[in-house]
């Protein structure tokens, strides 16, 4: 593709050169009659002459000016219009947006060439009409695309963070939206230029061109009108202008293709970000490495899966990344093996290798994978396919996207049986229904489409799919990501049940150590593609040998600093935030969702209040309402943030500037919370810019970097977010919230689960802020165990209502509401990082549940 874009640039350059030098290149005046009609090409006339004796080559050379003018001029006019309309619509929203988009829709539906003809008929042909009318039809599509891009930027967390800080529409537009869409403008321009050239040629071909300035379209119009076909002249008269038009448009198209792929910020930054971010993360925690500890299988037990010395590389040469290095793994029948490690540590690659699904640029560099004695790395695709889904089945990560959205779930389960000829379709459907019922999906939902099911139900469907062909091994790759506590517990219970069911092995791959500890018989810890520790669960959880395992265990254990860790802690004092009767509904009365329904809440300075609840409880809506990202339907939000005697300002909505800067929102997902196009310095000084604070932002930034322990400050201030590890990003996000000196910090949890390390780090920093600076903190999470570890009070939210609240200890000791109980039970069973119960007991427990 790179070579093609060079070709495009060369073509375009050539045309520009020819157009600029036309008077010197063309041998004749294109309008002069310089020879007899229909002279064939030859000396003096490179392409011969037309029916009137004009030199065709000269005409061709001069005509390039017309197309280039239209391409560049109309392209620029149209794109400018599109940028203005698109950004105006996206940042104004409301009726302005509605009006502009209606207009765009109308322009897009009306057939443009007939419209151009009608307009041209009334206003006469000629260049001015052409420029005007082509510009009029060409802006609409890019305007719509730019608006869509700008709107999607607006909904990103880093832009939301700026809005929550009280940034003006102008600030958001200038600092975030324009840089965000800038990369889209060149490809849009190229596309507009392409369209303008073709439209001009078409109009001119219909006789609407400027007679004094004939372009290639006009040349063809003459050729067609004067029946050039009837003579041999058409080869010289018709072919060259058409080919020139094609070549010029192609030049633009090739450039545009390149620009589009180059300018896609997500593709570029995303990829670089994840790889580099993770590499940095590895360097950061630099724990000493120790050789793998071997805990061999009990003698005589044949492994279902035997992996030895497995290495998988991505890419070759100097860019090669070793995803797995010399990994050994044995899985006995009837066993649950947990594979634990941080994200990006090679876990998913291992799963792919076990399925024979390592695809280029990935390659199995060395080692062997045996399944019941068969060497998988030696098998062909056809044989592997016979194993996949039948003998080795996968329960994938992110259940919401792993089901085909346009197929009923029962069909998808049936398909895995019917397609391998194991059953007839009718038989497969019956069996699918049984399986779905067995994983706990009500018969009435079997004919639903995936979008009609909740995340937990979709994950159950995937488990039913995995069980369909009665496999020997089930690979579960992060199966609980993004699920709330009780749902996560249900899924783990199902997987454990699957292993208890007739000699089947389950390999559970996850970063969720407590889940593994509560379910697995043996645990393998992977870090940076290597196995660093392995052993029976009880031993590994009780006496980890590798420091990394130990830190993992610690991070997930609920022993964070509670209140009163230090001597000079500040006692909770005045109310900082009081919310009463808060309500918010999305959508209309019939089909909408009551996200919040009469929520009362109070946070005092120097305390942390945890808001917990299952998915869909309205937790994030609460955060958004507090920061004006949504407007409440009813209820009041009262801030009292002055804290220095000036209390009483910022009542009800707290709109005052001073009030706004004293409350800050942190998005907990460090990967989405920072603008990718700004350096750390600019990110941290953004609040100062928004609040128009005086003083030196250089100093303030240096101070804050120091405070969040990004030292030395000079090393960090000029970096981009993708050059930082997750932990570093999170600290930048925290620094951004702290720099204006807030009295209240609200931390909103992202939908997906965070690394245990990242959470622990943030949580202990928040606890320190509470203790040392008396900052009021509202911590929003679905993990009641985490909240229990450091929050002073808990508020349990379910379906928009506060169902229970109170001091943490008292509330957990005696939860009353069923939602709270479910959360607490799931936490105790799967969440606490405690040593696992022995396998037989677990089975008994399982049978209890079913009986």
């Amino acid at each position, binding site marked *: 593709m790179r070579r093609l874009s060079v070709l495009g640039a060369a073509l375009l350059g050539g045309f520009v050169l020819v157009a600029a030098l036309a008077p010197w290149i063309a041998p004749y005046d294109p309008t002069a009659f310089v020879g007899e009609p229909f002279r064939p090409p030859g000396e003096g006339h490179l392409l011969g002459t037309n029916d009137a004796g004009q030199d065709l080559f000269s005409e061709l050379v001069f005509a390039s000016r017309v197309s280039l003018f239209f391409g560049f001029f109309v392209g620029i006019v149209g794109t400018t219009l599109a940028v203005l309309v698109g950004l105006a619509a996206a940042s104004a929203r409301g009726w302005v947006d509605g009006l502009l988009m209606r207009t765009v829709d109308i322009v897009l539906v009306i057939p443009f060439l007939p419209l151009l003809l009608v307009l041209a008929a009334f206003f006469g042909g000629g260049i001015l009409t052409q420029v005007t009318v082509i510009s009029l039809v060409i802006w609409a599509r890019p305007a719509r695309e730019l608006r869509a891009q700008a709107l999607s930027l607006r909904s990103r967390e880093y832009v939301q963070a700026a809005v929550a800080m009280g940034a003006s529409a102008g600030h958001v537009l200038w600092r975030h939206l324009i840089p965000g869409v800038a990369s889209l403008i060149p490809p849009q321009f190229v596309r507009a230029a392409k369209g303008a050239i073709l439209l001009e040629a078409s109009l001119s071909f219909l006789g609407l061109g400027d007679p004094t300035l004939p372009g290639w379209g006009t040349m063809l119009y003459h050729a067609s009108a004067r029946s050039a076909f009837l003579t041999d002249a058409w080869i010289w008269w018709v072919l060259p202008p058409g080919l020139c038009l094609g070549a010029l448009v192609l030049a633009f198209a090739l450039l545009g293709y390149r620009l589009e792929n180059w300018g896609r910020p997500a593709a570029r930054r995303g990829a670089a970000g994840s790889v580099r971010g993770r590499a940095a993360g590895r360097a950061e925690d630099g724990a000493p490495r120790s050789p793998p500890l071997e805990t061999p299988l009990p003698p005589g037990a044949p492994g279902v899966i035997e992996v030895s010395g497995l290495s998988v590389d991505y890419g070759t040469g100097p860019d090669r990344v070793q995803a797995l290095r010399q990994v050994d793994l044995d899985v006995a029948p009837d066993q649950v093996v947990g594979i634990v490690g941080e994200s990006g540590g090679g876990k998913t690659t291992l799963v792919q290798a076990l399925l024979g699904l390592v695809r280029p640029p990935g390659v199995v560099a060395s080692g062997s994978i045996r399944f019941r004695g068969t060497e998988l790395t030696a098998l062909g695709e056809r044989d592997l396919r016979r194993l996949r889904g039948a003998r080795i089945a996968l329960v994938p990560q992110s259940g919401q*996207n792993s089901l085909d959205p346009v197929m009923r779930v029962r069909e998808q389960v049936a398909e895995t049986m019917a397609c391998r000829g194991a059953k007839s379709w009718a038989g497969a459907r019956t069996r699918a229904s049984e399986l779905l019922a067995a994983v706990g999906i*009500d018969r009435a939902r079997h004919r639903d489409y995936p979008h009609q099911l909740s995340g937990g139900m979709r994950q159950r469907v995937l488990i039913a*799919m995995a069980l369909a062909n009665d496999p020997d091994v089930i690979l579960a790759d992060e199966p609980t990501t993004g699920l709330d506590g009780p749902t996560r517990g249900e899924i783990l219970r199902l997987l454990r049940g699957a292993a208890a069911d007739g000699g089947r092995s389950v390999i559970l791959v996850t970063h969720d150590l407590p889940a593994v500890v509560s379910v697995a018989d043996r645990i393998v810890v992977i870090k940076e593609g290597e196995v660093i520790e392995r052993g029976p669960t009880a031993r590994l959880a009780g006496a980890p040998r590798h420091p990394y395992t130990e830190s993992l265990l610690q991070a997930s254990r609920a022993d964070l600093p509670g209140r009163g860790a230090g001597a000079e802690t500040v006692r909770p004092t005045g109310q900082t935030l009081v919310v009463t009767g808060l309500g918010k509904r999305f959508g209309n009365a019939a089909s909408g969702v009551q996200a919040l329904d009469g929520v009362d809440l109070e946070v005092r300075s120097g305390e942390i209040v945890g808001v917990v609840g299952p998915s869909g409880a309205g937790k994030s809506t609460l955060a958004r309402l507090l920061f004006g990202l949504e407007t409440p339907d009813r209820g009041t939000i009262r801030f009292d943030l002055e804290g220095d005697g000036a209390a009483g300002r910022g009542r009800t909505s707290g709109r005052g500037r001073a009030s706004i800067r004293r409350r800050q929102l942190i998005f907990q997902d460090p990967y989405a919370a920072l603008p990718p196009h700004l350096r750390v310095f600019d990110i941290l000084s953004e609040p100062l810019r928004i609040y128009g604070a005086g003083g030196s932002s250089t100093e303030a930034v240096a101070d804050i970097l120091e405070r969040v322990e990004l030292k030395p400050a000079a090393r960090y201030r000029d970096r981009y977010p993708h050059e930082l590890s997750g932990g570093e990003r999170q600290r930048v996000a925290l620094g951004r919230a702290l720099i204006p000196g807030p009295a209240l910090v609200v931390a909103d949890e992202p939908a997906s689960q965070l690394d245990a390390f990242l959470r622990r780090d943030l949580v202990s920093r928040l606890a320190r802020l509470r203790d040392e600076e008396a900052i009021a903190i509202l911590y929003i999470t679905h993990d009641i165990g985490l909240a229990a570890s450091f929050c002073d009070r808990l508020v349990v939210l379910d379906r928009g209502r506060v169902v229970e609240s109170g001091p943490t200890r008292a509330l957990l000791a005696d939860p009353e509401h069923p939602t709270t109980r479910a959360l607490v039970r799931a936490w105790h069973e799967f969440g606490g990082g405690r040593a696992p119960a022995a396998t037989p007991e677990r089975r008994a427990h399982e049978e209890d549940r079913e009986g």
Partner: protein
Amino acid sequence: MRPRRWGALGQYALVLWVAVTLNFALPRLAPGDPLEYVIGPEFQTLTVEQRAEVLDELGLSGSLPQQYVRYMGNLFRGDFGVSIRFGRPVPEVLADRLPWTLLLLGPAFFLAFGIATALGVFAAVRRGGRADAGLLTGTLLLDALPAFWIAMVLLAVFSVRLGWFPSFGAEPLLGASSALAYGWEVGRRLVLPTATLVLASLGHTFLLARASMISSLGEDYIAQAEAAGLPPRRIIYRHALRNAVLPLYTHFALTLGGLVGGAVLVETVFGYPGVGRLIFEALSARDYPLLQASFLLVTLGVILANALADATYPLLDPRVRRRRQRGS
């Protein structure tokens, strides 16, 4: 779902209203005498009384709101005026031409869509390979060539040079001996214009089909289907293509406007007696009533096709279907 459906209908009504109002406004806004736009160059020969009479008759007298009301009334009664060039009521002229355009556009549309999708799937599955690169370059080139030029070249080669196909019109000039012979002649005359339209819209549709196929091949559910050991055919057609069709289907609308534009050019080159060529003839003859009515007709056609695509889209995509009522 219901409110959205009504919203879409309102949107189409709005587009139609804008087109109609544009037609009303243009003769009154354009430079020169509005009479010229309605009855042609002869308006200069009229006496003052005749002029007043004609103005009155044509709804050009009175205040603008009065004119507007009268204009809309005429439209509703199907009165689009008399064609200057043909001397017949405009709807009659249009009715003669419309079937030919439908005969041309219908097959061209489905052929272009089918071929482009097939090639798109083929290229997407072999993404990055030699065949893909070849197809990509070829279609980019095809997309860059103007439709009318393709028409001219096809005409010059296959009709003038090789004499395989007639070069002009849609039916034999002298009539045909039998219905079968007539059909054969009509079919022969359809080949080149259809081929042009297909070639001209192929590039764009192919690129779109390829892109949407590539994006659906990259979805998680495809990875899951692979891990579940489904046969490649089933994965490609039943899952990837089935989902890739959705964006293609919604793209119908935009392609259609372009295709109608292509018809104007292609019918003009081949002398094909459809609405497209009629627009060109009206334009050359300064036959404003005919031009305006043709414009309205094609706009209405595009709107109808859009509405049809909108209304049938839920059949393809369960996610936008109306929620089933559930008692739980």
